[in-house]
């Protein structure tokens, strides 16, 4: 059966082939799963680091400049170089990909969270103070909820760019869907394989983005009526 399949008259090199997707569904699904879990873990870790840092930058104004500048410099360093810095120490594994991707997600989340916190109107802050809220109470019950749109913008951007960035993990053989794309390139430039990987990447970014938008709508019921 497989003999006959592989020797059909000129298989060609189509841009997309369901045949390929069916025959390799295991590999493709495994790559998709790896890609998705890597992205979700990275964004989660980045958010857990970035939001507290943003709060620190918001509370202590003199620290805002250095924090943003440092993450800005990290953002300038090419991803491949960061892989090169991290891999000799963390080895070839998920930890390396994860730490690189997290570094890049940090800047976007921090910047947008700080912006979100800064746009909390001063009157609201004063009113909360007048009602007897302390620094923490005000942060957790007033300022962070009001900053949700900003945080969410950061998370969305971070998620979309993380999906794209994970593919660079091919350099250590942990690229998720990048692995499919790169294998297609090495398989005599097999277009269907490359396109499958690419389309799934873009699709994954889109799905996660829509998911975050939906989560944002659930979290900010007070904004719903406004934009219609």
């Amino acid at each position, binding site marked *: 059966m497989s003999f006959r399949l592989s020797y059909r008259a000129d298989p060609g090199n189509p841009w997309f082939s369901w045949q390929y997707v069916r025959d390799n569904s295991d590999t493709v699904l495994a790559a998709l799963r790896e890609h998705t879990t890597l992205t979700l873990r990275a964004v989660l870790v980045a958010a857990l680091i970035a939001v507290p840092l943003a709060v620190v930058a918001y509370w202590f104004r003199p620290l805002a400049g250095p924090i943003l500048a440092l993450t800005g410099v990290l953002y300038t360093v090419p991803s*491949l*170089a*960061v892989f090169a810095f991290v891999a000799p120490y963390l080895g070839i594994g998920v930890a390396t990909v994860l730490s690189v991707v997290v570094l890049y997600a940090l800047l976007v989340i921090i910047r947008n969270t700080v912006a979100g916190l800064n746009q909390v109107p001063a009157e609201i802050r004063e009113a909360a103070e007048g009602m007897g809220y302390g620094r923490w109470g005000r942060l957790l019950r007033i300022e962070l909820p009001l900053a949700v749109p900003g945080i969410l913008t950061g998370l969305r951007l971070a998620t979309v760019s993380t999906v794209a960035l994970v*593919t660079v993990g091919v350099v250590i053989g942990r690229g998720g869907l990048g692995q499919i794309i790169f294998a297609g390139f090495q398989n005599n430039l097999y277009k269907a394989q490359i396109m499958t990987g690419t389309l799934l990447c873009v699709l994954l970014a889109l799905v996660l983005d829509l998911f975050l938008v939906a989560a944002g709508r659930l979290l900010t019921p007070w904004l719903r009526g406004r934009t219609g």
Partner: protein
Amino acid sequence: MNPVSQAVVWLNDPLNWTNPGGILDRLGEHVSMSAAAVLLGCLVAWPLGLWLGHTGRGGGMVVLVSNLTLAVPTLALLTILPLTFLGFGRPAVVVALAVFAVPPLLANSYTGVRQVDPQTREAARGMGMTGTQVLSRVELPLAVPYLAAGFRTAAVQVVATAALATFVNGGGLGEIIRLGFGLSIAVGGGQILAGGLLVAGLALSVELLFALVERLVTPRPLRRARRRAGRRAADAVAGC
């Protein structure tokens, strides 16, 4: 031997610099393909952005373009373009890199023209300038700081992305890192680290160089206001 001292040893070997395929060769490749890509990006994005800004249309398109390129993996574009009519080799890599240079160039040229004070534009019209004259004599000079900012972002991004050209055998400094990984981390750790340092160093120096250029072409009174406006432009591009 730990990776850092290995890297120092590797960088101190003169042959690693001057051999065919050594650091100097790779650096030349890296810089030349980045320069070509940024140039190509400018040729496409600047006229388009200036014109869109002049007519005041297409703001949504500018945001759409930058969001789309954010979602497409660099690696995918680098591997797909050689399969098209561009063929395998340098042109395909340059075009792929140029695609990533377009969003910052486009967005900044668009914003640069849009931010011109409407009264200035009215005054120019009132003096009898035609549409093209308003664009070339009033809006363009006032947009120069924005163009410079976009150019800096684009150049840094392209230099960073060019490191990935090695995956499609496009050369550049990324090659050093990939070959190092090919040697396994125990043997090539130093080379990997050294390559990373070179790539990062190049990206940071490009950033510094063009930050300086940006400062030089921004007239002094505009520098303060410009910084705030630049942040707004960046937010607009970020799709807020």
